[in-house]
């Protein structure tokens, strides 16, 4: 068994292995079609069914579980995380396991996809490797994918 104690280290090593062995497109496919679409089904359902409240429930739980340093700000139609101390980056640095430099890139690759297909915009900025970032999610067409905006006739 690969222990859950090695979560961040093995995850990071996997990114490096996929990109080096199969190329960056393969890594993008892994993030999008496997982690976002097949693992994060709980987040997708929460956002589809409960919108901003679902985001609060999801990240409120996961960031507490992962012992992150963060602030969440939410309104009726927006949700923002200011991350001061990313638990993954903290663990990778402390254990000298930072084997993939752009580890942070997986977050937008996963979450932007899920938010967009549920009708939310996703903006973000991160300081690679520093453990600091912000993401801001805004309701645009909740319940309808953003890509449908043009064809839906308003």
């Amino acid at each position, binding site marked *: *068994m*690969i*222990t*859950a*104690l*090695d*979560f961040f*280290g*093995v*995850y990071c*090593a*996997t990114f490096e*292995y*996929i990109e080096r062995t*199969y190329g960056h497109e*393969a890594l993008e*496919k*892994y993030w999008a*079609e*496997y*982690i976002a679409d*097949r*693992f994060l089904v*709980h987040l997708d359902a929460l956002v589809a069914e409960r919108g901003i409240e679902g985001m609060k429930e999801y990240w409120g739980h*996961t960031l507490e*579980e*992962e*012992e992150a340093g963060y602030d969440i700000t939410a309104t009726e139609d927006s949700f923002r995380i200011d991350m001061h101390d990313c*638990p993954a980056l903290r*663990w990778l640095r402390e254990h000298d396991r930072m084997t993939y430099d752009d580890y942070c890139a997986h977050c937008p690759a996963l979450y932007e996809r899920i938010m967009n297909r549920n009708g939310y915009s996703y903006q973000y900025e991160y300081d690679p490797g520093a453990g600091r970032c912000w993401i801001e999610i805004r309701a645009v067409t909740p319940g309808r994918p953003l890509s449908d905006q043009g064809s839906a006739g308003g």
Partner: protein
Amino acid sequence: MIVPAFHGICEVTFRFFEESYGPEALEAYWRHLAETYYADLAERWRAEGLDAVEQYWRGIFEEEVGARWEIERAEDAVTLRIERCPAFAWMEESRREVMPSYCEHCRVMNARLCELAGLEFELSGGRGSCVQSFREVPR
């Protein structure tokens, strides 16, 4: 810190390799992790022998959530009896189907780790309960 959901990430990661590149690619990934990520562990097992094997698995299973297990120690072997695998426990509770080849990662990775450490590995059972034996190589 332990994040049990990681077992679910592992499972879809294995699916990615198997579905995209075939079972050989999945096994190559497992062997790569054993040879690189767990290289320090293999070295510790080689240097300290079965005491280090026992210590490692006790440390893991005492932290993992939802496991039922016991370790038997003999002079020449460490036997890990897993009645309820924590990875399967998490996936069952999350109502996730577990791919048929999931348990193979224990066989492949532990066999490779033992090979690097000069030990022998044997596994029987699977799908949530198994017996894993780590033995000194008979001289």
